[in-house]
């Protein structure tokens, strides 16, 4: 990296962009995957008559979905602020 490049590029903004993109991109996929895991567990637990497991699976699904929607809404709010 040349000194000129180092001086003109706003590396802090660039690093913030990379961190925000990584956290949002990976985070949303992980949280939504837990929602799917909850939904899939719920189907299995209901079929096998395991009530407590089904309730836990529904909670996982709701938390995952809520987290996904919250992340999307938060992203849009940050963009518009």
């Amino acid at each position, binding site marked *: 990296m040349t000194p000129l*490049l180092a001086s*003109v*590029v*706003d590396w802090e*903004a*660039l690093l*913030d*962009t*990379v961190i*925000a*993109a*990584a956290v*949002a*991109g*990976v985070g*949303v*996929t*992980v949280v*939504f*995957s*837990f*929602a*799917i*895991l909850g*939904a*899939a*567990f719920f*189907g299995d637990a209901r079929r096998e008559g395991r009530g407590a497991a089904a309730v836990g699976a529904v909670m996982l699904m709701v938390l995952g979905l809520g987290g*996904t*929607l919250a992340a*999307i809404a938060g*992203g*849009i709010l*940050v*963009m*518009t602020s």
Partner: protein
Amino acid sequence: MDSDLLLVIVVATALAFDFTNGFHDTANVVATSISTRAMAPRIAVAYAAVLNFAGAFISLEVAATVAEDVVDSGAITSNTVIFAGLIGAISWNLATWYYGLPSSSSHALIGGIVGATLAAVGTEGVLADGIAAKVLIPAVIAPIVAFLVGAIAIVCAYRIVGRMRPGPVNRGYRLGQILSGGMLALAHGTNDAQKTMGVITLALVINGTLATGSDPPLWVIISAASAIALGTYGGGWRIIRTMGTRIIKMDAAQGFSAQGAGAAVILASSHYGFPLSTTQVISGGVMGAGAGKRVSAVRWGVAGNIVGAWLLTFPAAAAAGAATYGVTRIFGTGALGPVVVSAVALGLVAAAFVRRARHGAPVAVG
């Protein structure tokens, strides 16, 4: 009077560029949703068009970068320069569309403007620091980040749901793609429509209609949003016909991860005012989601084409912009040159569309 006519031509040309941008990029935005059957093609295209329109209203940071950090509006005395840059960008966009090559509308736009400025006023009109800091460095970093985010996301997703039955898992990710595809379309509208807003704002500043540093007026925002949305909708019908054969096969989880990675990188970059190539970011996300599953699943030849096009786009559009400026100057400094060039360009575009419709693409898309 002459400068006002020139301004009208420049605004119309900028909106035409915006239309070609939407037209050119529809495939990037909707391909993953259609490929995994998360959405029917017609619905996916209409959905992307609406969210491209909405995305244009989210932020103005990228528009400010294009208007203020690429060329020195004080050194440019005529909007002929902006017109020539736009024609250079449109020429490159249409040439790559005609030959089925992947390319970046954003780099074509900035390259065209820079080339025309270099031809008109020399190096003092080009803000090299701004281009390096806000365009070139982010252009290198963003697709790599999208690739890594897509790859890490898909590895995490497979770890979490890997032992579940594929049926419910695929259905879940397909539903999720309605959200992630929507976010990607929103991100595309945000970053790409703003580039046209920035160019029109620059033309208004050069014309003396706006002061330097002004935000784009509302009519500019609405017209740029409408043009990219219409282009997205128009371009969609072309790809619907070819969608079945040209898409890399991916599962719904990969589609979700790729779209999420692309949307996250584009939205974060738009917030900081980096005008990215959305084409390359989305391609990076798709390749990352493919490589995260199996490295050999990625068509590395296609990746090589994308890198080649990335290297070629900026100088080619710059050369086209400079050449267009040279042609317009044959007719003097007024509006006559842009009028003649516009007429010739429209004729060439019409001929290309007719030929393409009759004979199809001259080369296959990778």
